[in-house]
């Protein structure tokens, strides 16, 4: 009876852990923005143009560059994404994780804005 109650308590704890922790990890693979995907330094941020309808409108872009250009012509890029001005608009933190090297090493960079 003693062992049975311990096993039951362990099962209850495991069930609570699964209910609390696992859905958050599964639903959002980027961990709420803390673990971000590798930034695409060749693209800008946009608001799309809205075609005719109730609220038609033109598009907008956040920065003047980079702009979409053909692949065979010269282009611009963002040299260091953590220094982009929109990151300083609110307090947050982020981890940039990317593979480095063929032996499975990885580069883990932590950035804080406050």
């Amino acid at each position, binding site marked *: 009876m*003693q062992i049975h109650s*311990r096993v039951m308590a362990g099962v209850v*704890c495991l069930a609570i852990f699964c209910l609390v922790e696992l859905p*958050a990890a599964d639903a959002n693979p980027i961990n709420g923005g803390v673990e971000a*995907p590798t930034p695409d330094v060749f693209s800008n941020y*946009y608001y799309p143009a809205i075609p005719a*309808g*109730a609220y038609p409108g033109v598009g*907008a872009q956040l920065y003047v560059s980079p702009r979409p250009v053909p692949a065979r012509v010269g282009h611009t890029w963002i040299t260091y994404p953590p220094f982009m001005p929109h990151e300083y608009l*609110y307090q947050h933190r982020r981890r940039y994780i990317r593979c480095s090297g063929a032996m499975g090493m990885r580069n883990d960079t932590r950035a804080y804005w406050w």
Partner: protein
Amino acid sequence: MQMNWLVLCGRIAAVMLLTAMAAQLAEAGGHHATEKRYFLRGRNKSWHSGWYNPAAGRPVPLVVPPTSEFVSEYSWGVPSSRVMPLYQQFRKPYPGAGYAPGSRPFMPTPDQPSDTVQFGIHAIRGPWGSY
């Protein structure tokens, strides 16, 4: 002994709950349900009004923090102010052409403006980080 185990399990569960809540509060991407609601409601809405900014010749987006939820607009008369939800947010994928057919012509700011939207400066929330 059984009672002690029950109390211990309860405390462990409480600590787990508090940890998960703290992690939810500390995340940078905003609250999931709120973000989804704002995204769905702002999908087919333009970010500007019918007026343009004469200095720029077009409506000017004003970048505000992504944690913003509302904008205040002021005018003469009644009502003299209104608080509007701010759904629009900059995002990563290139949406295509900047102009879509069917856009209406803009009006310049009148000589005696009666509303702050007539200045042609409209808020768009900044992006959540790199996506």
